[in-house]
């Protein structure tokens, strides 16, 4: 039942990326160079000409990170795209990464476009780590910025402390997420961090925003990732094994709203959360499956505690039990998935492979379902991909196998 449930009307046909760089390393390139390189790679992977692209489905308001903007008109000019019949972006920020594939699906199902590219490119000219401090004050940000919460991790440390207070979660759990994610990057050629991370290194590292230390933060990397989505029928005629979209969802409730740009979540459970529960419920309902059917989970990991909270909201464990769940070893990679466990971020995630605002998680989901992942989960048939816990929309995607 689960093997064939869900939408499965469109599929990811191609993925492509630039190499991943450390902060500052792409200073000699433009954002359009990076984005174009990823788009051309994704089209080549799919076996379509970039001139056939007729749709662009962005997220984060088509921003490229925190300073640059991705402009559809410039892409057309630069890449020789003949005509765009759909160009749109989800609102919000990295929360929409997985949901952008749902936007691509909407365009294809509506008949508005047939070959849709989703792309994210990132340079750290504005540093992620202090992005809150660096922006000009708005009337809304004037209620957060003056406190010295300089970046996203600082904001999320406030949710994390509540999770520790309410549920007894400990830093050992965050260390386990950092270490297990690093383990998955050790054999991945494109990963930025390929040395093991020890508990001694973790607990000896600088405390940036107590209780979050250096290794709880994802990296400030640079690079670009692109994804090509088409109808499933079209994808079957292309180069790669199609990876059908089983379900996609984005949005969020009033109780979450702007999340940690707001901090007004009315109940303790929503405050100490990733804001993804309503997305998870809708996603599983659309897919006709439960968390127990998921073979591999690509969970947006900008900060380790937000992985833990998403594992709760996506039903891999009960609310508040994320700490014991990860400490049991349940998220560690194993080629054969055992009941009650789920391999998480088998590519090394944003903590250890590269941070490209969620796009690398979509790529890894595709690789797992093609059967070509570096840390392949044997026989994987369903992959969960989540967008970043942030101001709404948050989002998620379930990818499947064609048969």
């Amino acid at each position, binding site marked *: 039942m689960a093997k064939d449930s869900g939408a499965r009307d469109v599929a990811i046909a191609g993925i492509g990326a630039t190499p991943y760089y450390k902060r500052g390393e792409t200073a000699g390139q433009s954002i359009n160079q990076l984005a174009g390189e990823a788009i051309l790679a994704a089209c080549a992977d799919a076996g379509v000409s970039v001139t056939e692209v007729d749709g662009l489905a962005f997220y984060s308001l088509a921003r490229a990170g925190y300073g640059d903007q991705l402009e559809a008109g410039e892409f057309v000019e630069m890449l020789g795209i003949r005509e765009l019949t759909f160009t749109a972006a989800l609102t919000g920020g990295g929360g929409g990464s997985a949901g952008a594939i749902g936007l691509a699906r909407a365009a294809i199902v509506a008949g508005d476009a047939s070959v849709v590219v989703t792309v994210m490119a990132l340079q750290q000219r504005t540093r992620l780590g*202090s992005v809150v*401090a*660096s922006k*000009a*004050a*708005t*009337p*809304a940000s*004037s*209620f*957060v*910025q*003056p*406190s*010295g*919460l*300089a970046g996203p991790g*600082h904001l999320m*440390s*406030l*949710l994390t*402390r*509540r999770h520790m*207070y309410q549920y007894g979660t400990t830093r050992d759990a965050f260390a386990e997420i950092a270490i297990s994610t690093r383990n998955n990057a050790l054999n991945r050629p494109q990963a930025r961090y390929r040395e093991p991370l020890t508990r001694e290194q973790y607990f000896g590292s600088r*405390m*940036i*925003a*107590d*209780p*979050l230390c250096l290794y709880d933060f994802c990296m400030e990397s640079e690079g670009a990732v692109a994804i090509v989505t088409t109808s499933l029928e079209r994808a079957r005629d292309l180069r790669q094994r199609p990876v059908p979209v089983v379900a996609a969802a984005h949005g969020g409730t*009033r109780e979450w709203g702007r999340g940690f740009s*707001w*901090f*007004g979540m*009315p109940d303790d459970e929503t*405050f100490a959360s990733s804001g993804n529960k309503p997305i998870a419920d809708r996603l599983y309902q659309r897919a006709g499956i439960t968390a127990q059917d998921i073979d591999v989970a690509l969970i947006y990991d900008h900060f380790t505690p937000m992985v833990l909270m998403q594992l709760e909201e996506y039903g891999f464990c009960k609310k508040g039990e994320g700490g014991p769940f990860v400490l049991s070893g349940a998220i560690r990679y194993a080629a054969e998935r055992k009941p009650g466990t789920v391999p998480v971020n088998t590519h090394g995630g944003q903590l250890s492979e590269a941070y490209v605002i969620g796009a690398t998680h979509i790529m890894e989901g595709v690789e797992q379902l093609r059967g070509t992942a570096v840390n392949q989960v044997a026989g994987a048939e369903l992959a969960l991909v989540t967008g970043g816990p942030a101001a709404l929309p948050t989002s998620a995607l379930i990818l499947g196998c064609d048969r």
Partner: protein
Amino acid sequence: MSAPANSAKLATALPAGAVKISTDPSTEPFWQAARERRLVAPRCADCGTFRLPPTPFCWRCQSAAVDWTELSGRATVYTFTVVNGYPGLPDITLVPVVVDLPDAPGTRLVSNVVGVDPAEVRIGTELTVDFHPIADGWLLPVFRVAGPAAKESA
């Protein structure tokens, strides 16, 4: 107040020149009151629901009518972090805090606890408002740990 027993660095707020705010018609009364060292919150004139930050409409009944209500300045730590360093200020120690405001139920403010050893801050610590100079002549509501007298009068 007695001096701290050890030489722990007390938390402060960002220096005036590092903090700029901007306002719009919905938020400006909050900042104008703060400049007069008063902590206020918008309360829906129709259904009585408080909201912060100030917005043009009441989220509960969608009314645009507002009564600006002066608060006592009492607050409770809902959650906090300890931050060492800020861009351009590597040695600063900050305790950013999210506070509950008991006389504006359902609202919170993001602020700082100042003048305290960060190790002494707890969820539930009772605070009282103070005002800290920031750029352009505005004052920023910040919080200090409430003294015994403040607790008794509460």
